[in-house]
């Protein structure tokens, strides 16, 4: 007979859930508000959402309690904290992009903001747990919101993107469950740390099955962080969604995916199964290379950035392969630096968003659009150039430091060839970033009309841009602090 169970609130460690709780309450609040009054405007919802996000952020930063909570389901360790901060900061900035000049369907609907907050909550759940179920449900929550939000952009392309993303996401969910099943079958557990423990304890379990489980997990998480060959969605989805959302997608879902991957794969890589290590080696290099060389031939800036984000993901994935705490710190450092640069780049695209596709039948942001931008709008062109060079890894701009740190981590861990591959890939990547700079600076403008490049610009966007560019240029000045923070938290949580 079932005995009554009594659990002390203390043991539940409810504060560990407080951050997510705030968001969920916020989201529901927005929905309710929308039901009650129809007067909420775009700026109102944006600011309200950002308020909730900031509240959340404050709580996350201020949380120094137990790592475990809610029956050990929740795990708020160092990397969870860092990744939540990244998620929240990024969300806040990208949500600001809703304050654009043009009106867009999605931003006029309260549901968008609710979904946005739900999505963030989903990602947060992914990061604060090592239970495969919670991760799965969190991931699905976030994904479902994201699909909807993409579709809410209300263009045919957006629908296409959403459907593609959704369908592939469903397949990835299948992979995820299959992988979990195999792990479960192997170890009888669905908690990552427990899985790892049991694999170590159990000598004669089928290694092939372990590998198979890993493979399905690579398929599932690889889809999220766009590892080749699970990357095919990336360019299409970026192209289909608004620049603001595309930029967001290049950062947040991936960092959530990376945290899960870090938790899971590093536990597996620690098992010293050579096959997994080699497979990761191949995947890292394939992802970097395919992303880079495909980006070389793109005609659209957003699409190019999509491929470039694949390459960056591959670059960062190497941290998981390397697996030292230096590499893991490098991953977060890289992503923070990458975030601000990408924020800037996508903000520029967003600002130049025109209601019609003036330059190309298909693309909103083809390279030719930026021809001679330096003459038309030198300020914007200069900023974009900074972002491009930063992404290319030209020192002293922000992403360079991330690359430096990651390559250094590779070298320090003895992955010399990996380091060389990483370095060579950054050399290839230079071309396509430079291509945009060349279009902007070295070519003559097609028309002198300045206004078409700023139809979507507002002071808010300009502020975002200024923040991004300041961070990109002066990254070297505060990297020390960021790095100290990251290293402290990463080592604290044992990665």
């Amino acid at each position, binding site marked *: 007979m079932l005995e009554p169970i009594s659990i002390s609130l203390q043991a539940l460690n409810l504060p560990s859930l407080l951050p997510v709780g705030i968001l969920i309450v916020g989201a529901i609040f927005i929905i309710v508000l929308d039901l009650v009054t129809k007067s909420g405007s775009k700026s109102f919802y944006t600011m309200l959402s950002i308020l909730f996000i900031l509240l959340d952020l404050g709580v996350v930063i201020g949380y120094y309690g137990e790592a475990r909570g809610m029956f050990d389901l929740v795990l708020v360790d160092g990397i969870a904290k860092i990744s939540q901060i990244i998620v929240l900061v990024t969300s806040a900035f990208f949500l600001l992009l809703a304050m654009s000049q043009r009106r867009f369907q999605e931003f006029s609907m309260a549901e968008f903001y609710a979904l946005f907050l739900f999505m963030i909550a989903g990602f947060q759940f992914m990061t604060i747990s090592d239970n495969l179920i919670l991760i799965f449900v969190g991931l699905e929550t976030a994904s479902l919101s994201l699909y909807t939000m993409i579709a809410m952009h209300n263009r045919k392309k957006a629908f296409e993107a959403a459907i593609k993303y959704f369908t592939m996401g469903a397949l990835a969910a299948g992979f995820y469950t299959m992988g979990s099943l195999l792990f479960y079958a192997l170890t009888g557990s669905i908690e990552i740390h427990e899985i790892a423990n049991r694999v170590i304890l159990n000598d004669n379990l089928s290694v092939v099955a372990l590998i198979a489980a890993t493979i399905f997990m690579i398929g599932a998480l690889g889809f999220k962080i766009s590892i080749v060959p699970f990357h095919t969605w990336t360019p299409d989805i970026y192209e289909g969604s608004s620049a603001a959302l595309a930029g967001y997608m290049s950062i947040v879902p991936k960092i959530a995916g990376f945290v899960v991957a870090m938790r899971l794969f590093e536990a597996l890589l620690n098992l010293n199964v050579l096959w997994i290590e080699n497979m990761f080696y191949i995947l890292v290099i394939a992802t970097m290379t395919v992303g880079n060389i495909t980006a070389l031939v793109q005609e659209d800036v957003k699409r190019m950035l999509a491929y470039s984000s694949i390459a960056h993901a591959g670059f960062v994935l190497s941290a998981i392969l390397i697996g030292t705490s230096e590499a893991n710190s490098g991953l977060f450092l890289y992503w923070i630096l990458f975030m601000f640069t990408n924020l800037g780049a996508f903000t520029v695209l967003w600002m130049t968003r025109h209601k019609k596709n003036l330059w190309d039948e298909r693309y909103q942001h083809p390279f030719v659009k930026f021809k001679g931008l330096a003459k038309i709008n030198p300020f914007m062109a200069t900023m974009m150039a900074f972002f491009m060079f930063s992404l290319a890894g030209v*020192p002293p701009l922000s992403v360079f430091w991330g690359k*430096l740190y990651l390559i250094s981590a590779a*070298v320090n861990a003895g992955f010399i060839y990996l380091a*060389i591959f990483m*370095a*060579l890939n950054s*050399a290839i990547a230079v*071309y396509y970033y430079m291509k945009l700079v060349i279009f902007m600076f*070295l070519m003559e403008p097609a028309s002198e009309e300045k206004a078409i490049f700023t139809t979507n610009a507002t002071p808010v966007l300009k502020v975002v841009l200024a923040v991004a560019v300041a961070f990109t240029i002066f990254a070297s000045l505060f990297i020390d602090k960021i790095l*100290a923070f990251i290293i402290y938290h990463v080592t604290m949580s044992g990665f």
Partner: protein
Amino acid sequence: MDYILSLVVFFPIVAGSFAFLVDAKSVRVFGIAVAIIEFFLSIVLWLGFDYGIDGMQMVEHFSLISQFGMSYYLAVDGISLFLVILSTFMTMVALFALSIEKDIKNLIIAVLFLETTMVGVFLSLDIILFYLFWEASLVPMLYIIGAWGSERRIYAAIKFFLYTFAGSVLMLVGILYMGHLYYETTGIWSFAITDWYQMVLPFNLQLWLFGAFFLAFAIKVPMFPFHTWLPYAHGQAPTIGSVLLAAVMLKMGTYGFVRFSLPLFPDASIYFMIPIAIIATVMVIYAAMVAYAQEDMKQVIAYSSISHMGVIILGTFAMNTEGISGSIFMMISHGIVSGALFMLVGVIYERRHTKMMREFGGLASVMPSFATIYAIMLMGSVGLPLTIGFIGEFLSLMGFYRIDWIITMIAGTGIILGAVYMLSLYKRSFFGPLVNDENKKLKDLNFKEYSALIPLVFLVILLGIYPKPVLDPISSSVKNMIRIMDKKVINKESKEILYKANSIGGGR
């Protein structure tokens, strides 16, 4: 005086940022003013330079990224001092001669940014900082070539950027590996080159690391067969771009060899001495011959740069004070002379909008001053004694003679071939009858051009006659460097070679 180095490094970029606010009409004057101030700052640096110290001086050192051991570390010694002055001087002079009207503001800003990076490269002693300036220097140059060049400028700019960038990424890996090794041995993260000088590396590691650094420097120099970006870059760049590229940016590569490759990897450097010398020799002769075949005046000078850089490499790898000092002196002399030659080509290009030699002929009679200055620079380029060109070439070749006289002799044919292509250029363009009607009304140099060229002529002759103030600090710093190398060398044969290279006598 405490922060003079930072001032010298960052003054142009700060001033360049201010230039955004200056209106286009007066921005050229603003640029010149900044360049003059910067030049005087570098002169102040020189005045404050203590000739008695052969190591680093005016050190500015504080930690920038402590987790990573990266610091802000600037210092100057005899090797870098004059390269800094060369950079500021050539920038100033190039701005004097600037006659571009289009987007002048952007150009001035780009040039000032470039100046910061160039000076930064020579003054950074933290290698990450060095790498930072090294890479950052590509960006303004990309812009200068790409925006103000001639028809194929974009191709040339891309090629320049990609090639040099790709070359240096391996160096980055090498740098990080060195940092790792330093950490392994000492337990401290440091990227300060002076710290690295203390580290003795096993031979096979030296070979690999030398290779990683080599590619970056070799492409920048550019060494055969990595040189093909240079003719395009020079051929397409506007005058000011070519001047700065030839005068300063190429020197970054050879400076890198002197500052990093030799003292960090002495055994590997000695091990690769002969192969590199052979490459250098090939460079000297091959580039000289290709230069002879050119039809475009600017290309001749571009290839001549390659040829001369070969001699510099040869001197660098002579491993003795004479050779290395000579090669450093030649960096300066080549900077001045090739800069001046590019400027001169710019003068005629501006008047005729062509650089093809067949379009010219007999220019000496319409533009005598131009021809005279050209001739002086030409003589500097072929290394006539009492011009600046001789000393470096002489010392470099002499230095390497101690290592291998046959290679030296073959490379020495460079002085013959140099005369061949230069004189044939001069003959084709300046001598002979004046046939082309378009050339008959050409105007001789104007004030702007004089103001740029006269200082150069003056320097070419002055430093040719009295190189002592420049050579002395170079020589003592190089001696110091060789002492470091000597301390670090681990192989017995390398030690012997190093000893032999630096001693007199002992038979052939």
